[in-house]
Protein backbone atom coordinates (compact mmCIF):
# COMPACT_ATOMS: atom_id res chain seq x y z
CA UNK A 1 0.00 0.00 0.00
CA UNK A 2 2.83 2.37 0.87
CA UNK A 3 5.85 2.28 -1.32
CA UNK A 4 9.04 4.31 -1.46
CA UNK A 5 11.58 4.10 -4.29
CA UNK A 6 15.08 5.52 -4.31
CA UNK A 7 14.21 8.10 -1.69
CA UNK A 8 16.78 10.74 -0.75
CA UNK A 9 16.40 13.44 1.89
CA UNK A 10 18.32 16.63 2.43
CA UNK A 11 18.24 18.89 5.44
CA UNK A 12 20.09 22.20 5.69
CA UNK A 13 22.32 21.28 2.77
CA UNK A 14 23.28 17.91 4.26
CA UNK A 15 22.36 14.65 2.56
CA UNK A 16 20.69 12.54 5.27
CA UNK A 17 20.12 9.37 3.28
CA UNK A 18 19.90 8.20 -0.32
CA UNK A 19 18.53 5.25 -2.21
CA UNK A 20 15.97 4.35 0.42
CA UNK A 21 13.25 1.96 -0.67
CA UNK A 22 10.55 -0.13 0.95
CA UNK A 23 7.12 -1.55 0.25
CA UNK A 24 4.59 -2.34 2.93
CA UNK A 25 1.06 -3.62 2.66
CA UNK A 26 -1.99 -3.72 4.88
CA UNK A 27 -1.38 -4.87 8.44
CA UNK A 28 2.32 -4.03 8.31
CA UNK A 29 4.32 -2.22 10.94
CA UNK A 30 7.25 -0.20 9.59
CA UNK A 31 9.84 0.66 12.21
CA UNK A 32 12.36 3.37 11.45
CA UNK A 33 15.49 3.10 13.57
CA UNK A 34 18.67 5.05 13.71
CA UNK A 35 20.73 7.38 15.89
CA UNK A 36 19.81 11.01 16.46
CA UNK A 37 20.23 13.16 13.40
CA UNK A 38 20.08 10.24 10.97
CA UNK A 39 16.91 11.51 9.35
CA UNK A 40 14.13 9.52 11.02
CA UNK A 41 11.94 12.56 11.51
CA UNK A 42 12.75 13.85 8.03
CA UNK A 43 11.70 10.53 6.55
CA UNK A 44 8.42 10.59 8.39
CA UNK A 45 7.71 14.20 7.42
CA UNK A 46 8.51 13.34 3.81
CA UNK A 47 6.08 10.44 3.94
CA UNK A 48 3.47 12.79 5.40
CA UNK A 49 3.97 15.20 2.53
CA UNK A 50 5.38 18.03 4.62
CA UNK A 51 8.85 17.82 3.13
CA UNK A 52 9.80 17.39 -0.48
CA UNK A 53 12.28 14.56 -1.02
CA UNK A 54 15.52 15.48 -2.76
CA UNK A 55 14.86 12.62 -5.14
CA UNK A 56 12.84 9.45 -5.42
CA UNK A 57 9.14 8.73 -5.24
CA UNK A 58 6.50 7.73 -2.75
CA UNK A 59 3.38 5.94 -3.82
CA UNK A 60 0.17 5.24 -1.90
CA UNK A 61 -2.14 2.52 -3.21
CA UNK A 62 -0.02 2.36 -6.33
CA UNK A 63 -0.67 5.99 -7.23
CA UNK A 64 1.00 9.35 -6.76
CA UNK A 65 -0.12 10.87 -3.46
CA UNK A 66 -2.98 13.22 -4.11
CA UNK A 67 -5.59 15.03 -2.05
CA UNK A 68 -7.21 11.79 -0.96
CA UNK A 69 -3.92 10.66 0.56
CA UNK A 70 -4.31 13.17 3.38
CA UNK A 71 -7.77 11.82 4.09
CA UNK A 72 -6.33 8.35 4.62
CA UNK A 73 -3.38 9.42 6.68
CA UNK A 74 -2.71 10.89 10.09
CA UNK A 75 0.60 12.29 11.28
CA UNK A 76 1.59 12.91 14.87
CA UNK A 77 4.93 14.65 15.06
CA UNK A 78 7.27 15.75 17.81
CA UNK A 79 5.14 18.71 18.74
CA UNK A 80 1.92 17.76 20.44
CA UNK A 81 -0.22 19.95 18.21
CA UNK A 82 -2.13 21.28 21.20
CA UNK A 83 -3.12 24.88 21.59
CA UNK A 84 -2.15 26.17 25.03
CA UNK A 85 -5.31 28.16 25.51
CA UNK A 86 -7.80 25.47 24.58
CA UNK A 87 -8.81 22.65 26.91
CA UNK A 88 -7.74 19.09 26.28
CA UNK A 89 -11.25 18.23 25.16
CA UNK A 90 -11.45 21.22 22.82
CA UNK A 91 -8.08 20.34 21.33
CA UNK A 92 -9.13 16.75 20.70
CA UNK A 93 -12.42 17.81 19.14
CA UNK A 94 -10.60 20.26 16.89
CA UNK A 95 -8.11 17.62 15.74
CA UNK A 96 -10.90 15.21 14.95
CA UNK A 97 -13.06 17.74 13.14
CA UNK A 98 -10.07 18.98 11.18
CA UNK A 99 -9.60 15.52 9.73
CA UNK A 100 -13.32 15.27 9.11
CA UNK A 101 -14.13 12.86 11.92
CA UNK A 102 -16.40 14.54 14.39
CA UNK A 103 -17.33 12.33 17.31
CA UNK A 104 -19.99 12.44 20.02
CA UNK A 105 -18.92 13.53 23.48
CA UNK A 106 -19.01 10.08 25.10
CA UNK A 107 -16.58 8.71 22.56
CA UNK A 108 -14.05 11.53 23.00
CA UNK A 109 -14.32 11.31 26.77
CA UNK A 110 -13.74 7.58 26.57
CA UNK A 111 -10.63 8.16 24.47
CA UNK A 112 -9.26 10.57 27.07
CA UNK A 113 -10.09 8.07 29.80
CA UNK A 114 -8.06 5.45 27.98
CA UNK A 115 -4.99 7.60 28.50
CA UNK A 116 -5.85 8.68 32.02
CA UNK A 117 -6.77 12.24 31.10
CA UNK A 118 -10.39 12.34 32.23
CA UNK A 119 -9.52 14.57 35.20
CA UNK A 120 -7.78 17.21 33.09
CA UNK A 121 -10.21 17.06 30.17
CA UNK A 122 -11.51 20.57 30.83
CA UNK A 123 -8.17 22.13 31.70
CA UNK A 124 -6.34 24.39 29.27
CA UNK A 125 -3.44 22.53 27.77
CA UNK A 126 -0.89 24.94 29.23
CA UNK A 127 -1.30 23.33 32.66
CA UNK A 128 -0.41 19.85 31.47
CA UNK A 129 2.86 18.08 32.06
CA UNK A 130 4.99 16.84 29.18
CA UNK A 131 3.71 13.32 29.60
CA UNK A 132 0.08 14.45 29.74
CA UNK A 133 0.52 16.50 26.56
CA UNK A 134 1.97 13.52 24.77
CA UNK A 135 -0.96 11.39 25.88
CA UNK A 136 -3.45 14.07 24.85
CA UNK A 137 -1.90 14.14 21.37
CA UNK A 138 -2.14 10.36 21.10
CA UNK A 139 -5.70 10.11 22.38
CA UNK A 140 -7.07 10.73 18.89
CA UNK A 141 -5.65 7.38 17.81
CA UNK A 142 -8.40 5.69 19.80
CA UNK A 143 -10.88 7.40 17.49
CA UNK A 144 -9.05 7.03 14.19
CA UNK A 145 -9.82 3.46 13.26
CA UNK A 146 -10.97 4.36 9.77
CA UNK A 147 -7.74 6.20 8.88
CA UNK A 148 -5.56 3.47 7.35
CA UNK A 149 -2.10 5.05 7.61
CA UNK A 150 -0.69 6.15 10.94
CA UNK A 151 2.62 8.05 10.85
CA UNK A 152 3.95 8.44 14.38
CA UNK A 153 7.20 10.21 15.26
CA UNK A 154 8.65 9.02 18.56
CA UNK A 155 5.22 8.18 19.97
CA UNK A 156 6.67 6.41 23.02
CA UNK A 157 8.68 9.38 24.26
CA UNK A 158 7.72 10.69 27.71
CA UNK A 159 5.11 7.96 28.27
CA UNK A 160 4.71 5.94 31.45
CA UNK A 161 4.27 2.17 31.45
CA UNK A 162 0.48 2.31 31.42
CA UNK A 163 0.31 4.70 28.49
CA UNK A 164 2.91 2.65 26.61
CA UNK A 165 0.74 -0.40 27.09
CA UNK A 166 -2.33 1.51 25.88
CA UNK A 167 -0.60 2.78 22.78
CA UNK A 168 0.77 -0.64 22.01
CA UNK A 169 -2.71 -2.10 22.26
CA UNK A 170 -4.17 0.53 19.94
CA UNK A 171 -1.45 -0.01 17.37
CA UNK A 172 -1.85 -3.78 17.49
CA UNK A 173 -5.60 -3.48 17.01
CA UNK A 174 -5.11 -1.09 14.11
CA UNK A 175 -2.73 -3.48 12.39
CA UNK A 176 -5.11 -6.36 12.94
CA UNK A 177 -7.79 -4.34 11.12
CA UNK A 178 -5.52 -4.06 8.11
CA UNK A 179 -4.14 -0.62 8.90
CA UNK A 180 -0.56 0.55 8.46
CA UNK A 181 1.65 1.99 11.17
CA UNK A 182 4.96 3.72 10.48
CA UNK A 183 6.82 4.81 13.57
CA UNK A 184 10.22 6.04 14.62
CA UNK A 185 11.47 5.04 18.00
CA UNK A 186 14.54 4.61 20.15
CA UNK A 187 12.81 2.09 22.37
CA UNK A 188 11.85 -1.48 21.70
CA UNK A 189 8.16 -1.77 22.36
CA UNK A 190 6.20 -4.90 21.71
CA UNK A 191 3.59 -4.46 19.03
CA UNK A 192 2.19 -7.64 17.62
CA UNK A 193 2.03 -7.22 13.88
CA UNK A 194 1.12 -9.56 11.03
CA UNK A 195 4.19 -8.21 9.26
CA UNK A 196 7.07 -6.06 10.41
CA UNK A 197 9.62 -4.20 8.32
CA UNK A 198 12.52 -2.28 9.66
CA UNK A 199 14.41 0.61 8.12
CA UNK A 200 17.71 1.47 9.74
CA UNK A 201 19.24 4.86 8.97
CA UNK A 202 22.93 5.52 9.41
CA UNK A 203 24.27 8.75 10.82
Amino acid sequence: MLEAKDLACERGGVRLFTGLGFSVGAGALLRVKGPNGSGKTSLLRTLAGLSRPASGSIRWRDRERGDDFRREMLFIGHAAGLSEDLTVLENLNFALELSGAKRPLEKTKAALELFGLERVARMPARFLSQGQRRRAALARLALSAEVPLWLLDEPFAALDAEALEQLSRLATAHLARGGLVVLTSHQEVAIAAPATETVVLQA
Partner: protein
Amino acid sequence: MSGFALLVGRDLRIALRRRGDALNVVVFFVVASSLFALGVGPEPKLLAAMGAGVVWVAALLAAMLSLPRMFAADFADGTLEQLLVAPRPLLGVVAAKISSHWLMTGLPLTLIAPLLGLQYHLPASALGTLLVSLVIGTPVLSMLGAAGAALTLGARGGGVLLGLLLLPLYVPVLVFGAGAVIAVQNGLDPGAHLSLLGAFLAVSSVVGPLAAMAALRIALD
Protein backbone atom coordinates in the same frame (compact mmCIF):
# COMPACT_ATOMS: atom_id res chain seq x y z
CA MET B 1 -18.76 22.29 10.04
CA SER B 2 -16.99 23.94 7.17
CA GLY B 3 -13.24 24.15 7.56
CA PHE B 4 -13.37 27.93 7.38
CA ALA B 5 -15.87 28.26 10.22
CA LEU B 6 -13.96 25.68 12.25
CA LEU B 7 -10.68 27.56 11.97
CA VAL B 8 -12.05 31.06 12.46
CA GLY B 9 -14.08 29.81 15.41
CA ARG B 10 -10.96 28.35 17.01
CA ASP B 11 -8.93 31.51 16.46
CA LEU B 12 -11.65 33.68 17.95
CA ARG B 13 -12.04 31.37 20.92
CA ILE B 14 -8.32 31.56 21.62
CA ALA B 15 -8.36 35.33 21.16
CA LEU B 16 -11.16 35.65 23.70
CA ARG B 17 -9.08 33.77 26.22
CA ARG B 18 -6.14 36.04 25.57
CA ARG B 19 -8.12 39.21 25.78
CA GLY B 20 -5.00 41.26 26.35
CA ASP B 21 -3.63 40.66 22.88
CA ALA B 22 -6.63 42.01 21.01
CA LEU B 23 -6.86 45.02 23.27
CA ASN B 24 -3.18 45.83 22.87
CA VAL B 25 -3.63 46.44 19.17
CA VAL B 26 -6.27 49.07 19.76
CA VAL B 27 -4.35 50.71 22.59
CA PHE B 28 -1.24 50.90 20.43
CA PHE B 29 -3.27 52.46 17.64
CA VAL B 30 -4.52 55.21 19.92
CA VAL B 31 -1.14 55.81 21.57
CA ALA B 32 0.77 55.92 18.29
CA SER B 33 -1.55 58.38 16.64
CA SER B 34 -1.52 60.58 19.72
CA LEU B 35 2.26 60.68 19.60
CA PHE B 36 2.19 62.50 16.29
CA ALA B 37 0.05 65.27 17.77
CA LEU B 38 2.41 65.47 20.72
CA GLY B 39 5.28 65.70 18.31
CA VAL B 40 4.02 68.54 16.10
CA GLY B 41 1.89 70.62 18.43
CA PRO B 42 -1.86 71.23 18.82
CA GLU B 43 -2.46 73.73 16.03
CA PRO B 44 -5.82 72.66 14.50
CA LYS B 45 -5.05 73.48 10.87
CA LEU B 46 -1.79 71.54 10.94
CA LEU B 47 -3.43 68.56 12.62
CA ALA B 48 -6.32 68.57 10.18
CA ALA B 49 -3.87 68.52 7.27
CA MET B 50 -1.92 65.63 8.84
CA GLY B 51 -4.83 63.70 10.29
CA ALA B 52 -5.62 61.29 7.48
CA GLY B 53 -1.99 60.33 7.06
CA VAL B 54 -1.37 59.93 10.77
CA VAL B 55 -4.40 57.72 11.40
CA TRP B 56 -3.54 55.57 8.39
CA VAL B 57 0.13 55.18 9.37
CA ALA B 58 -0.83 54.31 12.93
CA ALA B 59 -3.28 51.72 11.58
CA LEU B 60 -0.54 50.23 9.38
CA LEU B 61 1.84 49.93 12.28
CA ALA B 62 -0.77 48.50 14.63
CA ALA B 63 -1.85 45.90 12.07
CA MET B 64 1.76 44.97 11.48
CA LEU B 65 2.56 44.51 15.15
CA SER B 66 -0.19 41.95 15.51
CA LEU B 67 0.85 39.95 12.44
CA PRO B 68 3.38 37.58 14.00
CA ARG B 69 0.51 36.15 16.02
CA MET B 70 -1.14 34.88 12.86
CA PHE B 71 1.03 31.82 12.55
CA ALA B 72 3.72 31.93 15.23
CA ALA B 73 1.81 30.26 18.07
CA ASP B 74 0.47 27.51 15.82
CA PHE B 75 3.93 27.03 14.37
CA ALA B 76 5.45 26.61 17.81
CA ASP B 77 2.92 24.18 19.26
CA GLY B 78 2.62 21.99 16.17
CA THR B 79 -0.89 23.00 15.12
CA LEU B 80 0.32 24.54 11.87
CA GLU B 81 1.85 21.20 10.94
CA GLN B 82 -1.50 19.54 11.53
CA LEU B 83 -3.25 22.16 9.42
CA LEU B 84 -0.97 21.27 6.53
CA VAL B 85 -1.41 17.51 6.77
CA ALA B 86 -5.16 17.73 7.30
CA PRO B 87 -7.40 16.89 4.34
CA ARG B 88 -8.31 20.56 3.96
CA PRO B 89 -7.27 22.91 1.14
CA LEU B 90 -4.40 25.14 2.26
CA LEU B 91 -6.03 28.13 0.61
CA GLY B 92 -8.98 27.68 2.96
CA VAL B 93 -6.66 27.58 5.95
CA VAL B 94 -4.92 30.79 4.86
CA ALA B 95 -8.24 32.49 4.11
CA ALA B 96 -9.45 31.60 7.60
CA LYS B 97 -6.29 32.95 9.21
CA ILE B 98 -6.57 36.20 7.24
CA SER B 99 -10.20 36.57 8.24
CA SER B 100 -9.46 35.96 11.93
CA HIS B 101 -6.67 38.51 11.83
CA TRP B 102 -8.92 41.08 10.25
CA LEU B 103 -11.70 40.45 12.72
CA MET B 104 -9.29 40.92 15.63
CA THR B 105 -7.23 43.77 14.19
CA GLY B 106 -8.59 45.48 11.08
CA LEU B 107 -12.16 45.65 12.27
CA PRO B 108 -11.44 47.19 15.71
CA LEU B 109 -9.04 49.68 14.11
CA THR B 110 -11.67 50.69 11.57
CA LEU B 111 -14.26 51.25 14.27
CA ILE B 112 -11.98 53.31 16.51
CA ALA B 113 -10.47 55.40 13.70
CA PRO B 114 -13.24 57.99 13.42
CA LEU B 115 -12.65 58.90 17.07
CA LEU B 116 -9.00 59.53 16.31
CA GLY B 117 -10.07 61.50 13.27
CA LEU B 118 -12.03 63.78 15.55
CA GLN B 119 -8.88 64.34 17.61
CA TYR B 120 -7.27 65.57 14.42
CA HIS B 121 -10.17 67.90 13.65
CA LEU B 122 -11.26 66.06 10.52
CA PRO B 123 -14.68 67.24 9.27
CA ALA B 124 -17.61 64.81 9.36
CA SER B 125 -17.55 64.07 5.64
CA ALA B 126 -13.88 63.17 5.88
CA LEU B 127 -14.58 60.86 8.81
CA GLY B 128 -17.03 58.89 6.70
CA THR B 129 -14.46 58.51 3.95
CA LEU B 130 -11.85 57.51 6.53
CA LEU B 131 -14.14 54.73 7.65
CA VAL B 132 -14.78 53.52 4.12
CA SER B 133 -11.10 53.67 3.19
CA LEU B 134 -10.20 51.57 6.21
CA VAL B 135 -12.95 49.04 5.51
CA ILE B 136 -11.49 48.50 2.05
CA GLY B 137 -7.85 48.90 3.06
CA THR B 138 -7.47 46.91 6.30
CA PRO B 139 -8.21 43.56 4.62
CA VAL B 140 -5.27 44.29 2.30
CA LEU B 141 -3.06 44.69 5.37
CA SER B 142 -4.14 41.25 6.56
CA MET B 143 -3.73 39.61 3.16
CA LEU B 144 -0.24 40.90 2.41
CA GLY B 145 0.52 40.57 6.09
CA ALA B 146 -0.22 36.86 5.94
CA ALA B 147 2.50 36.50 3.31
CA GLY B 148 4.94 38.47 5.44
CA ALA B 149 4.09 36.56 8.61
CA ALA B 150 4.49 33.21 6.88
CA LEU B 151 7.80 34.22 5.29
CA THR B 152 9.32 35.24 8.60
CA LEU B 153 8.23 32.21 10.64
CA GLY B 154 11.16 31.14 12.73
CA ALA B 155 13.43 33.80 11.26
CA ARG B 156 15.89 35.83 13.28
CA GLY B 157 14.93 39.46 13.58
CA GLY B 158 11.25 39.05 14.33
CA GLY B 159 8.95 42.03 14.16
CA VAL B 160 11.48 44.47 12.75
CA LEU B 161 12.22 42.19 9.80
CA LEU B 162 8.50 41.85 9.17
CA GLY B 163 8.17 45.63 9.12
CA LEU B 164 11.03 46.02 6.66
CA LEU B 165 9.40 43.50 4.33
CA LEU B 166 5.83 44.72 4.53
CA LEU B 167 5.97 48.50 4.79
CA PRO B 168 7.14 49.05 1.19
CA LEU B 169 4.36 46.77 0.02
CA TYR B 170 1.83 48.73 2.08
CA VAL B 171 2.66 52.03 0.36
CA PRO B 172 -0.18 51.86 -2.21
CA VAL B 173 -2.76 51.25 0.54
CA LEU B 174 -1.46 54.25 2.45
CA VAL B 175 -1.38 56.49 -0.61
CA PHE B 176 -4.86 55.62 -1.85
CA GLY B 177 -6.42 55.33 1.61
CA ALA B 178 -5.15 58.58 3.06
CA GLY B 179 -5.47 60.23 -0.35
CA ALA B 180 -9.20 59.55 -0.41
CA VAL B 181 -9.71 61.34 2.89
CA ILE B 182 -7.54 64.28 1.88
CA ALA B 183 -9.46 64.56 -1.38
CA VAL B 184 -12.69 64.95 0.58
CA GLN B 185 -11.04 67.52 2.82
CA ASN B 186 -10.17 69.50 -0.31
CA GLY B 187 -13.72 69.31 -1.58
CA LEU B 188 -12.94 66.70 -4.24
CA ASP B 189 -14.56 63.38 -4.97
CA PRO B 190 -12.74 60.43 -3.35
CA GLY B 191 -14.09 58.00 -5.94
CA ALA B 192 -10.87 57.59 -7.88
CA HIS B 193 -8.82 56.88 -4.75
CA LEU B 194 -11.33 54.41 -3.39
CA SER B 195 -11.58 52.61 -6.74
CA LEU B 196 -7.81 52.28 -6.90
CA LEU B 197 -7.82 51.03 -3.34
CA GLY B 198 -10.46 48.51 -4.32
CA ALA B 199 -8.39 47.41 -7.31
CA PHE B 200 -5.38 46.92 -5.03
CA LEU B 201 -7.61 44.90 -2.71
CA ALA B 202 -8.51 42.66 -5.63
CA VAL B 203 -4.87 42.14 -6.57
CA SER B 204 -3.82 41.51 -2.97
CA SER B 205 -6.56 38.97 -2.44
CA VAL B 206 -4.88 36.83 -5.10
CA VAL B 207 -1.22 37.61 -4.53
CA GLY B 208 -1.21 37.68 -0.73
CA PRO B 209 -2.79 34.27 -0.03
CA LEU B 210 -0.76 32.61 -2.81
CA ALA B 211 2.49 33.94 -1.39
CA ALA B 212 1.39 32.95 2.11
CA MET B 213 0.63 29.39 1.00
CA ALA B 214 4.02 29.05 -0.68
CA ALA B 215 5.74 30.52 2.37
CA LEU B 216 3.94 28.17 4.78
CA ARG B 217 4.96 25.13 2.78
CA ILE B 218 8.53 26.40 2.77
CA ALA B 219 8.47 27.06 6.51
CA LEU B 220 7.29 23.54 7.29
CA ASP B 221 9.47 21.70 4.83
